[in-house]
């Protein structure tokens, strides 16, 4: 006599491989889509528009606040044929050493005493001054809430 065996219970298993695929895709998406440049920002300024053979460059003829930056050595003096990785700051011929916080404090004091925030401030670095000191001077000016910042460049 043939005994009919009961039907085997169906084994249900979700397809794991595509599921893992999708999970890894989601993981990569959320890891990579936050901007790679999240730690970068911009300092914005405008180059002056003018006509003529040196278009975009204005001769310095206005009365303004002048911040001079000098490249110096560790002792605060320029080193001939050496590394001048430090910076010395002069504001309208007043020396501040290498302290950008003092620069900011000086500018804030000037603004509190009535200097207009639209006053043209000229950053005049020596050609050997490192870019990071120019940016820090720009920082100090913006932090003191002045908006009209200009850079001195040599004519061609």
């Amino acid at each position: 006599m043939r005994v009919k065996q009961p039907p085997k219970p169906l084994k249900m298993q979700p397809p794991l491989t595509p599921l893992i695929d999708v999970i890894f895709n989601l993981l990569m998406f959320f890891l990579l889509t936050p901007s790679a440049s999240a730690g970068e920002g911009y300092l914005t300024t405008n180059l002056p528009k003018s006509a003529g053979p040196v278009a975009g460059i204005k001769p310095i003829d206005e009365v303004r606040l002048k911040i001079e930056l000098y490249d110096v050595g560790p002792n605060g003096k320029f080193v001939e044929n050496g590394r001048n990785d430090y910076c010395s700051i002069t504001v309208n011929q007043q020396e501040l050493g290498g302290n950008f916080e003092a620069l900011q404090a000086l500018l804030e004091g000037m603004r509190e005493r009535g200097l207009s925030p639209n006053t043209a401030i000229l950053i005049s670095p020596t050609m050997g001054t490192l870019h990071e000191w120019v940016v820090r001077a720009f920082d100090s000016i913006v932090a003191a809430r002045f908006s009209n910042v200009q850079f001195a460049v040599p004519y061609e």
Partner: protein
Amino acid sequence: MKLVKSSVCGDVSFNYTPILNGVFCLLIFFVLTAQFMTLEVEDVVLPPSLTAEPKDYTQFRNVVINIIRPENPAIVVMGHEHTYRTLTEHLKSLNESAKADNAKMNVILRADRKVPYEDVARAMLAAGNAQIEGWWIQADISRVEKATLKGSP
């Protein structure tokens, strides 16, 4: 007559998983490639800044001027090194094509922190000669130590 029941029966259902997989693959592909197409940047150590802010540069037509190699600075735009004159000509042609498209040009300066100002001034002169007004300086806002804003490296 023996009738054989067909063993092929059951509901037909649509498997969504591979489609979702494909959609996410495409999404990641376009998101990543879009990021790489926007700005041509070189690997530099940016100067730190307290006041720099992230900005939306997509409203302008941007040209990124990279100044690399502090020990022997070079101006690199779109992967090519430029002298002052070739940079001026290049920026002029970019500005002219932007004006023809009614777009506004913007220069993003991405200079290494140790690059001397002389090279930055050169790039600025070239942009000025090309009559480009927008001048953005890119800075690092992620690791600024406020207590050490002094003129020493």
